């Protein structure tokens, strides 16, 4: 049992600047491209000009003849070594076939970037173009060209035997109750199609890796990654090097948002370093990054909802089609996660969800903040408003009547332990004065219309395994090592705060160790809003172990029973009910130098969330495991928008976002997540769309692909931090990284609908908005 008290927990609930903030503000922070090594070469990629083609041969002679070129490597040379988290279908460089325009087929190492790029342009690859498929409809048509002829033989961590269509990589189903029976009982049924576009991560730092080989052939890879361990595994799988000879480390990371979860350019950098025997740095240009890395899945969702006249939601049917692009990446997991939230935070008695992920000859889609849930929640929450309208009910009242409560069971059968949902709703409803303002037209300037929208968000934080090690140093400070990468969201700071609180220390007494596969304990990755919750639990377990060991030593020094030892703030332990204390420094000295000290004090924690699903509650098929899903996190958002009736441009006037974080370890950082997530979601809702023509991405630049700037979003993004402590976390904390983004699409679409126009396709660009206003189109391409 963790000894703790409000006094020892002073580091929790503290808004403090990030540990590395000064380094970042001064320009000293080293990101991967800021690093150099003696003798370092520069890498460049050769990209496929074809969407689908067989590779017939290579002519490297002109590239190799260019002065300054040290090596050229091809997929044929590396061979068929597959990598991937969910499906192993991808190689470091294309082998035999290319499957999208921009797929790396070869790579060059040269003395400088200009030479490497010039040489890459001289690499000649002979192709035999093959017919390609660019849409889900084309990909699943009878007789469609197949992207992965060997799909059946790929290693997978889910059941793909349910797939039936050409190019289908996942086909999953979730069944709760009997929807046919449910719809028969309904007075009102609404059925609509919703679509979302491919969003690019646009982490400000393009993908980069630096690899170097030592005398024993061990490769060290510094890279912009969300997980040093996934990077190590990807280099291992794609190059066939034993993990014992791969060290993966991480300098500062300039944002990830899911896009740096799996392999980027690390395998190529490592392969070039091994081939040349010199350090090689590979840094993508923005254009290359957008063409070759990954995107959020474009989705098409048919949603049907039925309710009784009194507003009781009864049945929901949800059919999702996710365009996975040329490689599976995280597609099955993303699709399944979307399906998990297809019912929203509502008490449907009958739910049927069917999901398909399909290969197409486009950029792979993968993990992106929200992991499928932004698509599902856009469709689900849009439809809740639509059925409220059919019922003639206020969308708030309809939601309040049907929301899940603690004790209710989710799809799969997991029981909700706590819920801050109602508290979140109260916050945004009060702050936006919803009850006074919603329902009658909002005042707006001439030529504009305004609307007020509401959405709820449901998500989970958790997944996969993680660990932490805490060591007591000789001066009574501690070293925390977790293997969790900070992408900028502030986890180094928050984990240090939790470690400090677990031992009654100040944050300055905690030495946070940068993740390093040579030294850090395993952590699957910085994904799924999971670090504060999952790694925080591991840190809690590790500090508890340290406490227990220290209490033993303290009891010996203080000559009292071990049970009487208590943790005090400021690096002290004492005898309960007395003023006798001993410092951590004395305890450390005893452990290190005295025969009865027991040796160095080290504590560790290993966590895997395990929540058995109930097959009698819900039928699941063709899915990845959801036994380790995690803790539920809820939120509510209200937005007010203004539509320009002449241009179709939509402005967000003000937004109110409330999210239950269990307990805010660093409230300022939580606000930053809410504001930043909402704005990234606002881009998804209003402007961001990757566009392909004949398989070619036509807007791979920050000029043609528009992310929000400071003028595109309001300053008035009101964040509300709701705290309903989670019983499974040592400090009650949960994640908040993804939910603020998830709500943005539906809350903006619902506000636009309140102003008179229901648009069912994101992004709601001025063009789509105008068409909706002029022609009554809903934006869905049919």
């Amino acid at each position, binding site marked *: 049992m963790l000894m703790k008290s409000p006094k020892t927990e002073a580091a929790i609930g503290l808004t403090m600047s990030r540990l590395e903030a000064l380094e970042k*503000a001064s320009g000293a922070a080293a990101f991967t491209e800021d690093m150099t090594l003696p003798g370092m070469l520069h890498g460049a990629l050769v990209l496929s000009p074809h969407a689908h083609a067989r590779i017939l041969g290579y002519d490297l002679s002109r590239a190799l003849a260019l002065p300054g070129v040290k090596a050229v490597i091809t997929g044929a040379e590396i061979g068929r070594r597959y990598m991937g988290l969910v499906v192993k279908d991808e190689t470091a460089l294309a082998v035999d076939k290319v499957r999208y325009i921009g797929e790396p087929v070869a790579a060059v190492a040269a003395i400088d970037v200009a030479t490497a790029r010039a040489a890459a342009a001289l690499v000649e690859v002979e192709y035999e173009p093959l017919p390609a498929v660019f849409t889900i409809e084309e990909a699943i048509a009878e007789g469609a060209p197949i992207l992965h002829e060997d799909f059946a033989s790929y290693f997978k961590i889910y059941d793909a035997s349910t797939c039936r269509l050409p190019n289908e990589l996942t086909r999953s189903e979730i069944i709760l109750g009997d929807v046919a029976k449910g719809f028969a009982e309904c007075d009102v049924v609404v059925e609509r199609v919703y679509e979302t576009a491919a969003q690019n991560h646009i982490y400000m730092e393009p993908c980069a890796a630096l690899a170097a080989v030592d005398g024993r052939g061990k490769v060290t890879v510094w890279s912009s990654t969300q997980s040093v361990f996934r990077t190590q595994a990807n280099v291992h799988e794609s190059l066939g090097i034993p993990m014992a000879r791969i060290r993966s480390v991480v300098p500062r990371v300039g944002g990830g948002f899911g896009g740096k979860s799996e392999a980027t350019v690390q395998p190529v950098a490592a392969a070039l370093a091994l081939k040349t025997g010199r350090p090689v740095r590979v840094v993508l240009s923005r254009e290359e990054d957008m063409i070759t890395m990954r995107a959020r899945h474009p989705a098409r969702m048919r949603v049907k909802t039925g309710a009784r006249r009194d507003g009781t939601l009864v049945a929901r049917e949800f059919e999702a089609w996710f365009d996975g692009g040329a490689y599976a990446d995280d597609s099955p997991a993303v699709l399944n996660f979307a399906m998990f939230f297809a019912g929203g935070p509502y008490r449907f008695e009958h739910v049927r969800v069917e999901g398909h992920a399909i290969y197409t000859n486009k950029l792979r889609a993968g993990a992106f903040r929200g992991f499928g849930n932004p698509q599902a929640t856009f469709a689900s929450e849009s439809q809740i408003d639509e059925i409220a309208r059919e019922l003639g009910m206020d969308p708030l009242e309809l939601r309040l009547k049907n929301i899940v409560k603690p004790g209710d069971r989710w799809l799969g059968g997991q029981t909700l332990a706590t819920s801050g949902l109602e508290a979140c709703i109260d916050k945004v409803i009060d702050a936006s004065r919803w009850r006074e303002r919603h329902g009658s037209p909002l005042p707006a300037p001439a030529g504009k219309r305004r609307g007020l929208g509401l959405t709820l968000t449901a998500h989970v934080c958790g997944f996969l395994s993680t660990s932490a090690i805490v060591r007591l140093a000789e001066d009574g400070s501690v070293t925390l090592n977790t293997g969790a990468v900070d992408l900028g969201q502030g986890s180094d700071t928050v984990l240090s705060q939790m470690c400090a609180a677990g031992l009654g220390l100040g944050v300055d007494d905690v030495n946070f160790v940068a993740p390093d596969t040579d030294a850090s304990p395993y952590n699957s990755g910085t994904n799924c809003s999971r670090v504060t919750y999952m790694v925080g639990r591991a840190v809690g377990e590790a500090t508890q172990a340290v406490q227990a060991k220290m209490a033993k030593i303290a009891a010996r020094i203080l000559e009292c029973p071990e049970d009487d030892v208590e943790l005090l703030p400021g690096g002290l332990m004492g005898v309960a009910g007395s003023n006798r204390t001993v410092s951590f420094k004395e305890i450390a000295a005893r452990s290190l130098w005295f025969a009865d000290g027991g040796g160095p004090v080290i504590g560790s924690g290993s966590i895997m969330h395990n929540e058995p699903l109930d097959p009698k509650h819900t039928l699941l098929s063709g899915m990845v495991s959801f036994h380790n899903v995690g803790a539920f996190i809820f939120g509510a958002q209200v937005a007010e928008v203004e539509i320009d009736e002449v241009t179709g441009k939509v402005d967000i006037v003000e937004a109110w976002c409330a999210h239950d974080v269990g307990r805010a370890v660093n409230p300022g950082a939580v606000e930053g997540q809410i504001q930043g997530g909402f704005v990234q979601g606002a881009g998804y809702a209003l402007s961001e769309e990757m566009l392909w023509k004949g398989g070619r991405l036509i807007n791979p630049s920050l000029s043609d692909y528009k992310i929000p700037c400071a003028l595109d979003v309001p300053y008035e993004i009101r964040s509300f931090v709701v705290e309903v402590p989670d019983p499974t976390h040592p400090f009650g904390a949960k994640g908040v990284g993804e939910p603020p983004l998830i709500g943005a699409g539906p809350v903006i679409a619902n506000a636009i609908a309140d102003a008179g126009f229901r648009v069912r396709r994101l992004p709601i660009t001025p063009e789509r908005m105008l068409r909706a206003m002029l022609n009554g189109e809903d934006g869905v391409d049919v």
Partner: protein
Amino acid sequence: MSDAVLVSLSINDEVRPVAIPIDRTLLDVLREDLRLTGAKRACEAGACGACNVLIDGHTARSCLTLAADLEGCAVRTIEGLAQDGVPSVVQQAFLDAGAIQCGFCMPGMIMSATELLADNPSPTIAEIRTGISGNLCRCSGYVKVIEAIALAARRLAPSRPMAAAS
């Protein structure tokens, strides 16, 4: 290889002669030749502002600026804002407001904020938003960045009344 010209380059108050190929950008000279890596390469097309520096007090995209043109100009980079190891008022305000997340856009953002406050010591929220509209940030949603700049303005001109919010 393009022709090089010898330029007396003034960077952060230090003047040094540098042989610069005529087509070489200031960003490359800073990052590759002088190892001043604070200015970031994020788009190389002038769209994001991560490479912003001050040239004679005005922000410039170093990725679009040819270094050979800078004879006689005073270039200030993020590394040159602190005085005697003390962060500038603007830098400190970014720390105190919690505006920094991944930090990749921050050198450019802080340079834009520095110019903005030099030109307009008491900006409104609307003027701050306009002042940083050429700097893309993917983490913050800009709210705390705006707060940081407003905080810096108050600290730089404590006696001046802060203009009303937007």
